[in-house]
């Protein structure tokens, strides 16, 4: 594949890798802040198939950070905006837009046939449903979450259950973002790191395992944690 649109991907991505990316299939669960940036970046990278899943319509409060939201498309489905956006940016990418909320019942169908799943959700309980579905489907999961000036990303291989370590026994709590707000640059930073994890995963470049990266845009700090193999937490996620 020698398309000019991918010229500036070289030599970070070889022509062989670029061709491989066109064969890859990813699913983004959540098409709000993180999901919109992820679609944009994975589509521009040249991932061949992107499924986007979100039940929601755009609201005015989304405009501060959600790339796909705009004044004209308020009240319109987020996944429809995703499809239209990628048609304009990179029509070589097939976008499968599914306007539904992921549940324990439909999660396996939503992940079917994909090489990677992106966690762009906005709550903790659904993240555990997703982790379980990814484990069952035996596909890697790229986790990301934001609150205020802070964000976190973590690649999760099937069976590692790293969300259990990240969220402890707080599965029923709401995240801090309800107090701190959610800022556009934090969302963009976090999604960008998730896109980097995605590229490495899809191209089998090897990613650091059991690492959680925290970013603090206020302190201009990145902190990388090693997550322990064993854990004393009683929280084992939802089936």
């Amino acid at each position: 594949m020698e398309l000019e649109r991918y010229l500036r991907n070289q030599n970070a991505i070889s022509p062989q890798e670029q061709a491989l990316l066109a064969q890859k299939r990813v699913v983004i669960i959540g098409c709000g802040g993180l999901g919109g940036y992820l679609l944009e970046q994975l589509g521009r990278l040249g991932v061949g198939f992107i499924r986007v899943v979100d039940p929601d319509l755009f609201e005015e409060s989304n405009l501060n950070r959600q790339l796909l939201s705009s004044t004209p498309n308020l009240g319109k489905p987020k996944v429809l905006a995703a499809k239209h956006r990628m048609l304009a940016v990179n029509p070589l990418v097939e976008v499968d837009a599914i306007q539904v909320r992921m549940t324990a019942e439909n999660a396996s169908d939503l992940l079917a046939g994909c090489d990677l799943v992106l966690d762009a959700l906005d709550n903790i309980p659904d993240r555990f449903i997703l982790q379980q579905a990814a484990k069952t489907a035996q596909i890697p999961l790229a986790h990301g979450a934001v609150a205020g000036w802070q964000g976190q990303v973590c690649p999760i291989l099937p069976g590692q259950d790293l969300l259990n370590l990240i969220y402890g026994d707080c599965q029923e709590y709401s995240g801090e973002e309800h107090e701190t707000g959610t800022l556009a640059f934090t969302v963009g930073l976090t999604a960008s790191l998730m896109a980097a994890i995605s590229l490495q995963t899809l191209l089998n470049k090897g990613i650091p395992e059991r690492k959680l990266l925290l970013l603090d845009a206020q302190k201009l700090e990145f902190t990388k944690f090693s997550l322990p193999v064993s854990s004393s937490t009683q929280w084992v996620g939802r089936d």
Partner: protein
Amino acid sequence: MITVNTEESPWHEGMTVRALLDEKVFTFRHIIVRVNGEYVAEEEYDRHAINDGDDVMVLHLMAGG
């Protein structure tokens, strides 16, 4: 000395998780604490001792997308 979120930090006799959180001004309502990799539940913060040399991880609970 102890390690808090990968950085060295002073330790003192009688230090508990609660005391450390207060000293470091972790202000989020919900946080996740691990001492030497072991999860410490919130109800244990006042009595869970932190020993010299411990490795403490404090995560803010964030879930926005």
